[in-house]
């Protein structure tokens, strides 16, 4: 069963996070959002229905790693990628395209490297950059219908350079401009942050910016996000963006600081606290027997 949805409900960042955590293999296809003129009610609010238009982007993953991306017909073949990066001139690109029409990208890469046109490193980094450019672009899309098909992968002639999604997610969050979205995901700056169970493992191989490190150095269940922002002289937007990225990448978790728990307790104390049901085990066991027998 393919995963289906719309980016306005489940964002590209959330999708990448899901694919990463579930270690998925397959291809994500994103379609043009066509307005239908019909309306639907979602969570009590009216909105226009969207239908899926033509394909606009495809991104493939192997065991949770990004391996291929294309957008709007630019399929990222080796020659055009090297050309775009300035490793091949337009003239060189034209000649190679003519002569190597039926050569796979993998074979072509070997030829170009052997002929000293480009280095192996050029090939890897140009393809990687192309893939990332497409994905970063996708992060700003916020309407389009999508579908994820398990186990569907691009043909094997492509050079696939696996890229860890954690860094992509963090970088993606850096690029998310919409304050609203950040507000929605992190409505309460009075929450605090803590590290996950196995922080060492999670932080391995992650490149944090100076700003991110400054936030990470204050991570403690006692410090509210607001306090961390103040200590670092950061605006609400800046701190939201950073915390959102760190959280999506699983590097920090949100917790209630001790003070907040108290104030919630104080609030509930004003009205009678919901009585814990006085139910005994024997009652629960009778319920279990009954339901089993239905």
């Amino acid at each position, binding site marked *: 069963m393919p995963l289906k*949805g719309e980016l306005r409900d489940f964002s590209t960042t959330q999708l990448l996070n899901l694919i990463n955590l579930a270690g998925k293999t397959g291809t994500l296809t994103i379609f043009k959002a066509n307005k239908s003129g019909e309306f639907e009610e979602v969570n009590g609010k009216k909105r226009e229905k969207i239908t899926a238009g033509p394909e606009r982007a495809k991104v493939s993953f192997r065991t949770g790693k990004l391996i291929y991306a294309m957008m709007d017909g630019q399929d990222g073949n080796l020659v055009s990628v090297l050309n775009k990066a300035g490793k091949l001139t337009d003239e060189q690109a034209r000649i190679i395209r003519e002569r190597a029409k039926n050569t796979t990208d993998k074979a072509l890469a070997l030829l170009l490297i052997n002929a000293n046109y480009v280095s192996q490193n050029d090939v890897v980094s140009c393809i990687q950059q192309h893939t990332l450019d497409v994905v970063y672009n996708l992060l700003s899309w916020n309407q389009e219908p999508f579908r994820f098909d398990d186990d569907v992968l691009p043909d094997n002639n492509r050079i696939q350079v696996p890229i860890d999604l954690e860094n992509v997610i963090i970088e993606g969050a850096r690029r998310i401009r919409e304050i609203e979205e950040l507000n929605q995901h992190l409505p309460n700056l009075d929450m605090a942050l803590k590290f996950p169970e196995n922080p060492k493992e999670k932080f391995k191989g992650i490149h944090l910016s100076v700003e991110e490190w400054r936030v990470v150095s204050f991570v403690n269940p006692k410090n509210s996000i607001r306090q961390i922002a103040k200590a670092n002289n950061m605006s609400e937007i800046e701190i939201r963006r950073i915390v959102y990225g760190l959280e999506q990448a699983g590097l920090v978790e949100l917790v209630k600081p001790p003070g907040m728990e108290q104030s919630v307790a104080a609030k509930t104390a004003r009205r009678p606290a919901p*009585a814990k049901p006085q139910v005994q085990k024997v009652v*629960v066991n009778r319920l*279990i027997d009954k339901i089993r027998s239905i």
Partner: protein
Amino acid sequence: MQTVKMVITGPFSAGKTEFIRSISEIEVVSTEREITTPAEKRQKDVTTVAMDFGRITVDDDLVLYLFGTPGQRRFDFMWEILAEGMLGFVVMVDSSKPETFREAKSILETFRAYAPTPYVVAANKQDHPDAWSAEDLRIALRIEEGVKLLPCVAKDKESVKNVLLELLYSILEEMDT
């Protein structure tokens, strides 16, 4: 006679009524229906307490009530009242409608704040061709490892029984700690 209750919550159209209907021994009293005209809407606001209500009689002195919460936010003043004294709760999610996941998570958090009772999440409509799998839902909704996330088809009595039993097992475990 002792009565105990469980609450079935979740967004509008997640399958709460269907769930209760599948297992209740009485016809489910459902007051929630399509609101069409503005006049009806006005009327509904004043007169209706929209909720489902089902019953399972164990024997002469023990009855289990299942309450379905009204899915629409404007009835959420009812939630706290329903939550009081509940044995546990089920959060129903329509697995085929990602546009409701955020709302489902928010309802879950709200109920969790009312009472520290055990709960399970039911990934409903698993028979739907667009249903997200339970494993994907766990990540999408960020449900902690310790919380049961159960595939469910609310129309299927066996599936509903399984969800309620898993909730009861969690309640038993909680009593042991």
